[in-house]
C-alpha cells in the first residue's frame, strides 16, 4: 500500500534527498524543510520504495503536506 511522508513543520522545501525507485528504511531522512532559516530533517516512519516525489525546492509547505509517497509492503 502507498503511504506518504509529510511535512512536520511549516516552511519551504529545502530539498528532497530521495529519488523515485529508492528503497529506504524506517527512520531514514527523505527531505529537509527550511523553517525560519533552520533546516529541519523529515524522516520516514516506514520502510518502503519511493513511488513519487511531490515536493521540490522552494515549495511552500504546511504541516501535514505530503512530500514523498512510498510503496510500503504489508
Amino acid at each position, binding site marked *: 500500500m502507498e503511504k506518504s511522508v509529510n511535512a512536520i*513543520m*511549516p*516552511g*519551504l522545501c529545502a530539498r528532497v534527498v530521495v529519488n523515485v525507485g529508492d528503497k529506504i528504511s524506517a527512520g531514514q531522512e527523505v527531505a529537509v524543510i527550511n*523553517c*525560519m*532559516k*533552520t533546516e*529541519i530533517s523529515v524522516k520516514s516512519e516506514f520502510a518502503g520504495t519511493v513511488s513519487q516525489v511531490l515536493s521540490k525546492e*522552494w515549495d*511552500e509547505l504546511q504541516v501535514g503536506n505530503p512530500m514523498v509517497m512510498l510503496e510500503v509492503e504489508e
Partner: protein
Amino acid sequence: MIKKLLIANRGEIVPRIIRTCREMGVATVAVHSEADKNAPFLDLADETVLIGPANPALSYLSMEAIIQAARQTGADAVHPGYGFLSERGAFAQAVTDAGLVWVGPPPSVLKAISSKCYTRKLAVEAGAEVTPGTLEPVTSPEEVVAFGSEHGYPLFLKLDKGGGGKGIERVSEPGQAAEVFKRAGSIGQMAFGSPDCYIETVVERPRHIEVQFLADAAGNVVCLGERECSIQRRHQKIIEEALSPVVDPADRQRLYANTAAIVKKMGYVGAGTLEGLRSQDGKYYFMEVNARLQVEHPVSEFLTGVDIVRHQLEIAVGLELPWSQSDIKTQGHAIEARIYAEDPETFYPSPGVISKVVLPQTGDNLRVDHALADGCTVPPYYDPMLAKVIAYDQDRPKAIARLIEALKAFQVEGVKTTISVNLRILEHPSFLAGEMDTSFIAEHLGLT
C-alpha cells in the same frame, strides 16, 4: 534629497527606516510578499506594493519585482535594509542602472568585496592584521598539507565567495585535506558559483569586536565606536553592546585608524561595519566587512546620538559628513537584546500567530525596534528575529539593569521566544563582569 524611498525588506527594519524618513520629509514605499500582506511592518508606509509569493526567491530576493515596484510608485531611491539583496553588487547595479539612488556602497565595491581573499589582502595592505591564514585561494590539497605542517591543525577551508556561516570546512589532520578540499570546492561551486577557498586558522575563544563607520564620497570616514557581539549562537548574534568592556582607549585608536585606512582603500561610501576578532592575548584581527545597515546599529546610535539611517540617505545623494572623528562623542553604555521566535531550550523555530504582545515602556533610554501587533502572523519563511530591545544608561551595570527590566515586561503569547535566554545571559555573573567570548552560550548556559 530623496523624495520617495522604497524599502526592499521586511520586518522591524521597515518601520525603523520609515521613522527617519518621516523626520526628513521623505515619502516611503514598503514592499511585501503574499505571506506578509497583513503584516504590521506595512502600517507606517505611505504606499505598499505586493511583489510576489511567500517564497523569498520570488519576492524579497527578486530584483526585477522590486525595481518594477519602484517604477510603479515613482520611488527615486531604494534602501535594501539588511540581509536579502542588501550586499548584492548586481542588485546595486540594477538599481543604479534604473536611474534610482542606491542607499548603500557603490556596486563596484560590493562586487569586489564579495571575494574574501580580496578583502583580506586589502586589509593587510592597509596595515591591519587579518585572522591567520592564506591571502590567496589554495589550488591543491598539497598546499593545504604544506600550510598545516607549518602552522598546525586544525585549520579551516573557507569559501572565497561564502557567507552567512556557510562553506566553512574543518581540516583536523593531513589525511583529511584531499577530501575536504574537494568537498569545499563543490559546495562553493553549487552555492556561490566559485570553488575557490582559502585557509584560516582558529583563533581560540575569541571575542567578536566590530567597528561601525560612516564614509562619504569625499573620502571622509568617521567611526561610531566599536560594538562587542561575543554572545552568539551558531554565528547568530544575541546580545550586542557598545562600547566593549574589554577594548581600551589605545586599542580603540588603532581599530579606528585601521578602519579608516581599510575603508578608504576600498573606496567604500556609505554606512558599514568592519567585523573582527580579539584573541585571548589581546590581539585584534580583521575578519570581514558588512556592507549594509546592521541589525545592531541602534546600539551605536544610542552611544553617539547619530541617526545612522539619516546619514545613509544623505551620503547616498552625495552630501558630505558634517563632522570629523573628533566631533564624535561616545558617552554612557548601550546594550541590545535580540528576541527570536524560537524555543528557549532547543532553539527550534516557532512560527505561528502572536495572540497578544505587551511591549515595555519606551523612552529616551529605552528603544524597542519591532513590527509586532496582537494577532500578527510570524511566517515560517523568513528570519526568526521578532524584535530588538535596546537600553542606554550612564554605565554598563545600569544599562544592563534597564535592559533586564524591559525584557521582564515584554510579553509575547502564541509563539515561543528567547526572552528567557536573554535574561539568563544578562543575569550571569561572568557576563556582568564583562568576561565573555563566543563560546559563552554553550559553556555557561549549556545550550548549543
